[in-house]
C-alpha cells in the first residue's frame, strides 16, 4: 500500500467535510474491496475517511411498504436481521451468500453499492426492487445510480447513507458463483410487486448490472419458471473470461432466472 492519512469522523457531515478538504480522499466502509485494491497498489488515495464510527449510518427500519437499510450495515447484519428476513427474505438470503463469513462480518451494503463491482450482488437487488439510494445530498433511483462497471451517479463528496427498498410481494436471488473468486459469474434477482416484475442480472454484463426485459415480459404473463423456457438472453454485451464465455453466461442467466423464480415461489 502507498501511504495515506486516516480520518475517522463521527458524523456524515464531518465525513463530507473531510472529503472536501483532503486531497484525493476516499471513503472506507468495510474496506473489503478498497483495501485489497490498495494492497495491490491499484489505488492510491491520499486520505481515507472511515465511516466505521458514524452511528447514523447503522440500522434497519421497516416503514410501511419500504425497508430502509443503513449504508454501514454489514452483510451479516442484513442477513441476520429479522426485519429483512420478514420483509424481503430474498434480500436476506442474498446477503447471507455474499463472500464468506469473514467478509460478511465486515463488508457493507453501502460500500458494495458505491463501488458497483460488476460482479457484486446488491446492485441486482437494488435494480430489481427499484431501490432508492439515499445520499447526504439527494435520493437517487437505482436505475440512475448504477452507471456501468464501477460507475455510479455519486458526485465528489457524496456519501451513500441509506438504501430504501420497496417491499416486493415475492422476490429471490439465484447466483452462479465464479469457482475461484466466488463472486457472481451470473446473479439474477427476480422481484414481483403487484403486476410488475423485474429481473436484474449481475456478474454477466460487460457494463455491469442490467435488466433482462424479455424475461420480465414473460414473467408478467405468468410468474412461473416455465414462462422462461425458450426465453434466451442475448450473449452480445456479456463478459467472456477464463471462467465463462458470453454464450455460457447467456445460458446461465436463463437457468439462474428460473431458479430465482422457483425460490421466490417458495419451491
Amino acid at each position: 500500500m502507498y501511504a495515506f492519512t486516516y480520518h475517522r469522523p463521527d458524523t456524515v457531515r464531518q465525513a463530507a467535510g473531510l472529503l472536501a478538504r483532503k486531497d484525493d480522499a476516499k471513503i472506507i466502509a468495510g474496506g473489503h474491496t478498497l483495501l485489497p485494491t490498495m494492497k495491490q497498489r491499484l489505488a492510491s488515495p491520499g486520505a481515507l475517511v472511515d465511516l466505521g464510527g458514524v452511528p447514523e449510518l447503522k440500522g434497519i427500519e421497516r416503514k410501511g411498504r419500504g425497508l430502509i437499510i443503513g449504508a454501514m450495515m454489514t452483510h451479516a447484519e442484513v442477513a441476520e436481521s429479522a426485519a429483512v428476513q420478514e420483509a424481503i427474505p430474498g434480500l436476506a438470503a442474498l446477503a447471507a451468500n455474499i463472500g464468506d463469513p469473514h467478509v460478511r462480518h465486515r463488508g457493507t451494503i453501502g460500500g458494495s453499492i458505491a463501488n458497483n463491482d460488476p460482479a457484486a450482488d446488491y446492485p441486482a437487488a437494488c435494480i430489481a426492487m427499484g431501490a432508492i439510494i439515499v445520499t447526504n445530498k439527494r435520493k437517487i433511483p437505482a436505475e440512475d445510480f448504477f452507471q456501468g462497471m464501477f460507475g455510479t451517479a455519486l458526485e465528489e463528496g457524496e456519501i451513500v447513507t441509506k438504501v430504501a427498498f420497496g417491499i416486493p410481494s415475492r422476490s429471490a436471488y439465484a447466483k452462479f458463483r465464479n469457482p475461484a473468486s466466488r463472486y457472481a459469474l451470473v446473479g439474477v434477482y427476480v422481484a414481483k410487486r403487484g403486476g410488475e416484475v423485474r429481473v436484474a442480472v449481475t456478474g454477466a454484463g460487460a457494463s455491469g448490472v442490467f435488466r433482462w426485459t424479455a424475461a420480465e415480459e414473460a414473467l408478467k404473463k405468468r410468474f412461473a419458471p416455465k414462462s422462461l423456457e425458450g426465453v434466451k438472453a442475448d450473449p452480445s454485451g456479456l463478459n467472456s473470461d477464463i471462467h465463462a464465455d458470453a454464450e455460457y453466461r447467456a445460458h446461465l442467466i436463463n437457468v439462474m432466472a428460473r431458479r430465482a423464480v422457483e425460490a421466490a415461489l417458495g419451491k
Partner: protein
Amino acid sequence: MSATGIGASVRRKEDHRFITGAGRYTDDINRPDQAHAYFLRSPHAHATINRIDATKAMAMPGVLAVLTGADLEADKIGGLICGWMIHSKDGSPMKAGPHPALAQGKVRYVGDHVAVIVADTYAQARDAAEAVVVDYTVLPAVVDTATATKSKTVIHDVAPDNTVYNWHLGNKDETEAAFKAAAHVVKLDLVNNRLAPNPMEPRAALGVYDKGEDHYTLYTTSQNPHVARLVLSAFIGIAPENKLRVIAPDVGGGFGSKIFIYAEETVCVWAAKKVGRPVKWNSDRTEAFLSDAHGRDHVTHAELALDANGKMLGLRAHTIANLGAYLSTFSSSVPTYLYAPLLSGQYNIPAIYAEVDAVYTTTAPVDAYRGAGRPEATFVVERLVEKAARQIGMDPARFRQINYITKFPHQTPVIMCYDAGNYNASMKKALEIADYKGFPKRRREAERRGKLRGIGFSSYIEACGIAPSAAVGSLGAGVGLWESAEVRVNPVGTVEILTGSHSHGQGHETTFAQLVSDRLGVPLEAVSIVHGDTDKVQMGMGTYGSRSGAVGMSAISKALDKVIAKGKKVAAYVLEASEKDIDFKDGKFSVKGTDKTLDFGSCALQAYIAHKFNGQDLEPGLKEGAFYDPTNFTFPAGVHIAEVEIDPDTGVTTVVNWTAVDDFGVIINPMIVEGQVHGGIAQGIGQALLEGVIYNKDGQLVTASYMDYTMPRADDLPSFKVGMTTTACPSNPLGIKGCGEAGAIAAPPALINAITDAVGHEDVAMPATPKVVWRAAQKAVSKMAAE
C-alpha cells in the same frame, strides 16, 4: 502393537505448537536490524534489458541497495542449476540455457527477476522499486506447449528451436510390431493441465552474514536444506559449505515447489553480506503464482494396442512437455524418468515406447509438483484403459483385472522391476466399498432427478523413494538419493534422532518417534526428531517423492540396529555375560536363560559413565549414524473409484462418492497415512475439476491470484472412503512403500473417467470446469434426446 508403536494412530507430537499459534515458520523469524528485500520483476514475457537506472530509487528513504545481474556477475555468483542431465535420442546433452538469479541482459517470463531493492522496510523497498527505470526491448512471447518448437522466437541461444531435448524410452520396433498385430487400437489426445502448487505458506528467505566468522546463515522455506546448501555452495558459489548454514524451520507445505533452489533465497543470502545486514524476503501470493515452479503441462498423443480378447499388447505415447523459461532444479527428470517408466501402470504390457520432447516457453519454470511425472503417466494409462474398455464393450473393472500383473517381481519394458503387489485385492476391496454393483440403480435414480451420473476408475501405480543412488546416477541424476540418520542416546536414555528428511506437514516428529519407541522400548515423549538444520544434521537429501518413510526411516532403522548392537556390548559388561547371550526386547537387555536385565536407560548411563568396561576395549558413549541407500524404488499402488453427478443445466460436477484403496506396504501411523491420501485426492480433484494456470498469448499470467486460480475449498469436495490392502515392500527393512503422492496421482483420471462416463463421450478436458462440462453435457443431452 503397542499404543504408540508401529501401526498405531498416535496423535501428532508437533500439533500442539501449530494449534496454539506457536509454530515457527521462516517469516516468523526476525533478526535485529534486518532489512527487507523486494524483487523488481519483469512485466514482459520476453524482452532484452537495455538499461537499468536505479539512481532515483537509491535516493529514496530507507533504501540500502539496488542490486542487479551485473552485481552478481561482478561477485562471480553463478547461475541456478538443473541437477539432472538428460540426453536426447541422438546422444546429445540437454540444452540448458543460463539461469542467473537476477536477469543478465534478458528476461524470459513475467515475474522473472530484474533487480532486488533492499531497504529498511518492505514498504520502502516496494516504493523504491517503482522508481527503478528499466529500458526493455520487448520480444515476442512463446506460450503454447504444443507449438513452441515451431516458433521463430528463440528463448535461449543454446536451443534455437526451443527444444531442451528429444528423449525416448522403450523398444520402438517391438511396439510397432505389437500395434501391427493388434485387433483393437485405442487412441487419445490428452492435455495435462498446468498447475500452481500453492502451499499455503508462501516462500520466504532470511539471509544473515556474520562478518566476524565470515559465515552465512540462510533461513528458508525448503524441503531439503542440505541440497540447498550444496547447490548454493558448490554451484552458485555463495560460500563453502562449512561457511554456510541453511535452516528450514517449520515449513507450511511444499508439494514439490520447495525442493528447488530459487533466485530469491540465493539473492537474500548474497545481499546480506553486500548490505551488511540480515535481508528478509517474504513472497506474496501473486509472486508465488508468478515465480514458484509450476507443475505438469504436457500435451500427449497415446495409443494402446489390444488383442481380440482384450489383452494389452503395446502402448505408445508422444509427449511434449513444457519446462518453462529456465530449467529448474530437477525439471528435466520429471517428464522423462519420473514419467515414462510408469507407462506400464499395473498392467502386463509386453511392448512400450515413449517419446518426450521438452520445450522452452516464456513462462515460469515447470518442475516437480506432487506426483511429478507419475500423475501425467497415470493420466495417460488410465484414460486409455477406460476408453479401451468402452471401445471393446468390456466392464472397465474386468478389463483392468484381465490385464493386471499378478506375478512378482515383474520386469516392465520401461526400466521398472515391480517388487510386490496385489492389484486384484485392491480392486476387489474398492468395488465393495464403492458398491459398484449398486451403481446402475443410482444412475437411474439420478436420471429421474435430471442429473447425469457417472463412475470412473483409476488403477494407479507409482514409483517412490527413487533409488538406489547408482541407478539414478546412471539415469543422469546429479545427486545420490540415499538418506542419513543419527541416533543420539543421552545418558538418561532419552533419544534424539537427527534425520536428513524434512517435515513440512508429513508428521515426521510423530512417525519417526513411533519407530524409535517401538524399537528401543522408550516412551514416545523421550524421543525428539531433529531436522531441517545443516549445522545439526550432517547431511541429508530431504523430503519429496514419498521417500521419507521408505528411505529416511530405513536409515533410522539401520542406525537403531547399530545402537542396539552397541547397547548389547555395554550390557554384556554390566550384566557380566557374554555379548552373544544378550537379548534386547521391550526396552530391556537380558541374559539368555537368566533373570538378569538392564533397561535401556540404565544401559545408556553405563555407556557414558564407562565404569564397567575398559575404554580401550569398548568406546564409551551411545551414538550411531547410518546412511541408507535402498535396493530399488518402492511401488505403492491402488484403485480409486470416483462417482459424480452432473447438473446438465449448469455443468456443475458434484463428486458424490470417492473410494480409495491403496497398498502402501507397512504403515507406521494409519491416521497420518489417511490424511496424506485425503490431501492427495483433493489436489487431484483440484487438477481435474478446478485448477489451471493460464497465460494469455502475450505471456501474461491470467491466473495470478485466488480471484482466478481456483483452489479446492471445503465445499468443492466430498468426504473420502479410504481402505487399505497390504503387501510389504521387500526393498527396505521396514516394508514401507510411501503414501504422499498417491491421491494426486490416482485422482485425475478417475474423475475424468467418471465425467466421460456420465456424458457418454471422451471429449472432456481438464480442468473440467462448469463451462467445459456444460458443453460436454449438451452433447450428451442432445444425444439422449435423439435416441
